């Protein structure tokens, strides 16, 4: 059942939805999985939009979309496994955490950024949450310069402004740590 990011065979026996990435590639996805993407769900919530309509996802690359679909597919599977049983819930939760860790571990910084923007655009809360956590972990002990490079951000402080901010803010923790 779990094809890795490739278009599933249409004999899935349920409704499918077609999603189009920014480069035109079309992904055919089971309805349940597609609805994990709130943006897609909203698209179909509009009156009169038939399920045959191809959903254009102009801001998402096919690489990112493939990974998102793969994650959501697994997430839906795992959610189906959990139910009233404490044990099953616990196991499903662990598996999901393992899935998240694996996804994050394999990604380069560029990859993670792309996924965050995709998850943000597609409005997938859970995915966004663990991705942001991963990014936080990656930048937490790094220099200001590193963070700027990582996010491709311009330093828009004038030298005076930067000095002033530094004085007001950065000294705050100096001397707090015990010798």
């Amino acid at each position, binding site marked *: 059942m779990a094809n890795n990011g490739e278009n599933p065979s249409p004999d899935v026996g349920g409704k499918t939805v077609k999603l189009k990435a920014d*480069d035109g*590639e079309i992904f055919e996805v089971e309805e349940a999985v597609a609805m994990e993407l709130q943006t897609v769900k909203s698209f179909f919530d509009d009156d009169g939009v038939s399920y045959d309509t191809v959903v254009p996802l102009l*801001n998402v*690359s*096919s*690489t990112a979309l493939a990974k998102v679909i793969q994650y959501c597919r697994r997430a839906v599977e795992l959610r189906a496994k959990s139910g009233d049983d404490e044990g099953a819930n616990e196991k499903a939760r662990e598996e999901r955490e393992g899935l998240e860790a694996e996804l994050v571990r394999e990604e380069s910084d*560029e990859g993670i*950024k*792309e996924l*965050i*923007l995709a998850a*943000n655009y597609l409005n997938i809360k859970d995915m*966004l*949450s663990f991705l*942001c*956590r991963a*990014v*936080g*972990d990656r*930048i*937490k*002990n*790094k*220099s*200001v310069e590193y*963070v*700027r490079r990582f*996010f*491709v*951000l*311009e*330093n*828009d*402080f004038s030298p005076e402004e*930067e000095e002033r*901010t*530094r004085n007001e*803010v*950065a*000294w*705050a*923790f100096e*001397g*707090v*740590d*015990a*010798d």
Partner: protein
Amino acid sequence: MDNNEGEEESDSGPGPDWAELTQECLTNVLSRLTLEHRWRGAMLVCKPWLQACMDASLHSAFDIEPHFGSAFESSRWWTPEFERKIDSMLQSIVVWSDGFLSEIRTRHCSDRSLLFAAERCPNLQVLSIKNCPNVTDRSMAKIASRCTNLRELDVSYCYEISHESLVLIGKNCPNLRVLKRNLMNWLDPSEHVGVVPNEYLNACPQDGDSEAASIGSSMPYLEQLEIQFSKLSVRGLTLICEGCPNLKYLDLSGCMTLTSRDIANASLGLKDLEIKKPNFYIPSTVFHMERYGHWSLYDERFQTDVFRI
């Protein structure tokens, strides 16, 4: 399908436009960083990030206790300059929290920032301000009247706060369950000498019974109480036990004016009460994992009535 061409600035490259990153997304990432990481790093990245770091959602708690560590105190922290830094930090956080601040855990702040916090933090539940020589009854009165949701209060080693503040807090904050009012080790102050100013060491409150009476008379729902090195007598202890029927945990370490019999008698009516007794020999090591106290001091004490069991 080859996306990795290293194009970071063009629109079609793999480096998407981070300026589009929604505020919510950015706040999400920032929330994974500690306060220090934000103050020393994130806030200096660029102006939008500086703004994002001031988002109220990031400031429901101000906790810099971990920076102070548990055992070691630095003399640097007892200077007016340091106190100003802490006040300044706390004030900034109070402003940014926009009324949502629910926890303050710091040391060495003063009335200046605490009055400010009292005015603007009606949702405060936890206030832990140990070692604040310049926090007085003045700001504590304000806290009592404005922060009525207070659940936990730690005013250990704050010698300018009198028992009157305890009464005000008790009467105005019906949710108070935890009170810590520990004093410094006056039996063996060697660990503090050279770090804590001598005048302050000597300003240690002497009347443990007034404080005990205040607690007993105004905090009927108290569940946890720490009064290490208090000089209260069995009279004070009885007032506490009678006035706080829900007490579950009582730390009397260093309360040398109490005997075992005193403690047993006073706490008779309280079920499920766990008491940390004033261990009669308390070397500094037990408390702070540092140097040993002086044996001879304790030898002498062993001879007195205080240790009658």
